[in-house]
């Protein structure tokens, strides 16, 4: 198996410059950071898609229909008149559907988040615990055979503090 190269940076802008350079040269890169860098990354490397919104939408609509089905359907399954109101009353039905819209919308958002971010995953992966404190990491993965020197040179040029060739590091699950 190929090894990957993990470069650790102190400064975010250096990391982003290195990332841009490497991505331009056609490497697979992964950026690690202790804080969200979404805005900066998008600024540097171009915008990313947000698929979650579709799932949220589908979830909300499904929740709406689930609420309608639950309130109207169960009322029709066992007809019990109460309070001189119709079996199918608009107002309480809408209120119930409102809550289920939110509930199932949240559930779908949660599921799609787990799906897209590939969490939870407890298998061993390349990682360095310092990333969660104050280091930024840049991982160059994939078809690297014979090109380690070039990658490492680029990382060093951009100011990486530390460069490691790794298969799997201290990640504990």
């Amino acid at each position, binding site marked *: 198996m190929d090894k990957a190269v993990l470069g650790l940076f102190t400064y975010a802008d250096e990391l982003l410059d290195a990332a841009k350079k490497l991505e331009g040269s056609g490497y697979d890169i992964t950026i690690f950071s202790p804080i969200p860098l979404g805005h900066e990354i998008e600024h540097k490397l171009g915008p990313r898609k947000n698929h979650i919104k579709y799932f949220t939408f589908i979830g909300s609509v499904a929740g709406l229909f689930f609420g309608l089905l639950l309130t109207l359907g169960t009322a*029709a399954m066992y007809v*019990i*008149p*109460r*309070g*001189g*109101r*119709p*079996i*199918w009353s608009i107002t309480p039905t809408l209120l119930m559907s409102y809550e289920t819209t939110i509930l199932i919308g949240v559930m779908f958002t949660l599921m799609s988040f787990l799906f897209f971010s590939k969490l939870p995953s407890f298998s061993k992966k390349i990682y360095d615990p310092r990333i969660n404190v104050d280091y930024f990491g840049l991982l160059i993965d994939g078809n690297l055979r014979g090109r380690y020197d070039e990658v490492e040179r680029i990382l060093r040029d951009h100011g990486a503090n530390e460069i490691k060739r790794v298969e799997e590091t201290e990640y504990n699950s």
Partner: protein
Amino acid sequence: MSGLLERIAGKLRSYREPGYYTKLDHKWTMVIDLDKCNGCEACVVACYAENNLPVVGREECEKSRAFSWLRIERYVEGEYPDVKVKFIPVMCQHCMKAPCETGCPVYATYHNQDGLNVQVYNRCVGTFTCATYCTYDVRRFNWFTYKWPKPLEAQLNPDVSVREMGVMEKCTFCIQRIRSAKDTAKDESRPVKDGDIKPACSQSCPTGAIYFGDIQDPESVVAKLAKSPRRYRLLEELNADPSVIYLKRVMGDGTSSHE
């Protein structure tokens, strides 16, 4: 095909009907003539005996936990010696638009085909919503497990279940008597006649102030009495559409009680 669709559409449309039933089987109604009521409370005692109501004792009564499904409200007007006392028996009014029914989350109280407001004791989880929403304060709660002293448990009515602790209950218009009357009528293949059913309070009233019957039957006594000019219903302005009709008491000086 179109017939089937029409049937489904009709069914769906019927779910939008207020009160749901297009026609009630009966509409049991109680008429109470306040002119005849002398506040003797025989009806209250009869209700205790018929419906297995526990006697809770003085301390609990002081906490306003007396169990009577039917109570005689007493209102005193004026100063001694010029005193007027007015009585009004109040039990569950079996509202057609009952606020309690919409409140219950588990369908423990609902409206049935006879126009009765029904309480299913063993479905009740005791959220108190019905009692809080009830504008007449007629619902009673089993605060404890009540026990009957030794020989008295033998006089419990087998047609009425003994309610568990934590359950709401109320006047049923003696639904067990309605059920048995309907049962008898069915065996004799005839409709229920006026006068077949007498709730315990009506049966025991010495002056005959309480009438009971089906107001949908134009020939019944209650239907006729309900046309009386003395007729009124309790808290009618709240739009709960109660099924108990009171006939005003006309006092000696021409004034009428209540209202």
